[in-house]
């Protein structure tokens, strides 16, 4: 069955990541980053592998994964759009730009669009406050969000 072989793939890959990184001091976050890097999220199946590799309980690992905003428990869309909602961007009309983006993409915060094109995530400051309002699309920084830039973003994720 496909599901099963996927599970096996995840377990195998997670095992090799854990083996490779567990000698680091404080290895859990680096391992989780690597796993999310690899799969696009932190699969449930990876948790027991990490737990046994690091001598932790499964609950400990889950507690850490759920604490941090960055770790996803399911795959994201093909693109990930982070939009800053913090004060400097608010002062430059960021809320309105975010509303327009949500309308244009048909997603709310933390959601993935039905066509799987994009996941929208709020962030609280990208350090781009001197060119607010700002956003980040798949790791690419975007400053001075305006209608034109929003149009470009929408076109890019819909491609």
């Amino acid at each position, binding site marked *: 069955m496909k599901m099963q072989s996927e599970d096996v793939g995840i377990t195998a890959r997670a095992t090799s990541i854990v083996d490779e990184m567990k000698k680091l*001091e*404080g*290895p*859990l*976050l*680096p391992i*989780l*980053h690597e796993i999310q890097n690899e799969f696009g999220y932190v699969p449930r199946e990876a948790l027991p592998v990490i737990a046994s590799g*690091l001598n932790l309980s499964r609950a400990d690992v889950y*507690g*850490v994964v759920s*604490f*941090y*905003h*960055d*770790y996803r428990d399911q795959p994201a869309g093909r693109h990930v759009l*982070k939009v800053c909602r*913090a*004060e*400097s*961007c*608010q*002062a*430059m009309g960021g809320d309105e730009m975010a509303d327009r983006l949500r309308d244009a993409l048909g997603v709310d915060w933390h959601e993935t669009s039905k066509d799987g094109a994009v996941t929208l995530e709020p*962030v*609280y*400051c*990208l*350090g*781009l*406050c*001197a*060119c*607010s309002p*700002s956003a*980040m699309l798949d*790791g690419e*920084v*975007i*400053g*001075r969000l305006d209608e034109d830039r929003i149009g470009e973003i929408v076109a890019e994720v819909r491609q």
Partner: protein
Amino acid sequence: MTVTIYVPRDSGALALGAGKVADAIASEIRTRGINAKLVRNGSRGLYWLEPMVEVETSQGRVAYGPVTAKDVASLFDADFLSGGKHALSLGDPEEIPYLARQTRLTFARVGITDPISLDDYKAHGGLVGLEKALTMTPTDIVRQVTDSGLRGRGGAGFPTGVKWKTVLDTPGELKYIVCNADEGDSGTFSDRMIMEGDPFILIEGMTIAAIAVGATKGYIYLRSEYPHAERALNEALAVARKAGVLGKSILGSIHAFDIEVRMGAGAYVCGEETALLDSLEGKRGQVRAKPPLPAHKGLFGRPTVINNVISLASVPIVLDKGAAYYKDFGLGRSRGTIPIQIAGNARYPGLFEAAFGLTLGEIVDKIGGGTKSGRPVRAVQVGGPLGAYFPRELFDTPFDYEAFAAKDGLIGHAGIVVFDDTVDMLKQARFAMEFCGIESCGKCTPCRVGAVRGVEVADRIAHGVEPEKQIELLEDLCNTMKFGSLCALGGFTPYPVMSALRHFPEDFRPHPVREAAE
């Protein structure tokens, strides 16, 4: 002769198209067969002019900006490589008043050098502080830092030298230097600019700290929102290791030290030093009760120096020029320079490093040029999401730790967010509570529950439900959070909330009354 062209690799410049500009310049160089070299420098911090392109001409550096990819061909046509005139000409960048009026000590090299060229770094005075430190006793290094008056730039303003002395005096075979590069405060970007624009200064500062306290391992805990800083740091660390600035023998001495970058995972509270240490250890980023101090039992229970990026990056100049030189800048108990970050609705947003003591009004109106929207400035938030909102009436407050505290505010990480008169201060107060709720580590009730209650109360005020009673409730709630919270997330959220209420009470009155009053 090869001409050198500079296009910033700084995230802020990239966010405004610097990457495309650099590509366009590279392609013109190729097609025109010109002998030119492209260097990706840091940003000068004049963000309304970014992407700002500079050329090294026989008469010195000449700047053009803001440049888009479409302007590039015309720049070549105007012979900008010899400083030719163009609509985007800015002349000598150092003579642009915004830059000319600054006192750049920590940011002396940012925008000038190639951030990952150690030769450039050395040619511009880099490593002199470290070389001097290597000839001094640990006690003397610590004394220099103490005498300089340098206080932590991460927010709390604790004397850096005093912290180092505690770690020096604590016995331990293994000690750590941890750099707090979480820079979570909205309206701030100075840490990012240093890490992207002059990473060697941070490496040098951390190495001096290591020699001073006897540490052998350093970590830079970097927020995950800063991928470009991660790249620049890792490139610089590789260069530093190869050149023997880091490693088993620092610059040929008996000291060993190395640094690793560790990424955060999106949690504002991990900027709090004890939560940061827990996060580095691989735990949930929850705040630890103090004592023990990190200086006694920090990372993995070992004596640990934990300092902000700018604190550490200000150390090389102290060692290089001496404590007295640094201390000569500033006033009162706020000594040296502070990189002020002007953000939000500002006409000239950017980084302005100056000695302490400018008034808030000078910074906002004269340097920041008022609002970008052209409307009146109504409020400015100083010191990030936990900082107070200041009205114009308090614009005579000098930028100084104690002066801000006396006005129930804080300097924090020195970010200033400007708002025009369209701002709704009840909404800002509500956001402060909402943010506290989203980012609370959950350890104490006043913060975890208080923040959620705060949002509800703000909503009831907005809907005109028993406003007087709700305002009383809000004040009570703020009091409970202020005195019952373990750390400043819950403890300082009352600053933005109460300052909004105190200075802008009209925004908290029910709308009918508000309209009648107008």
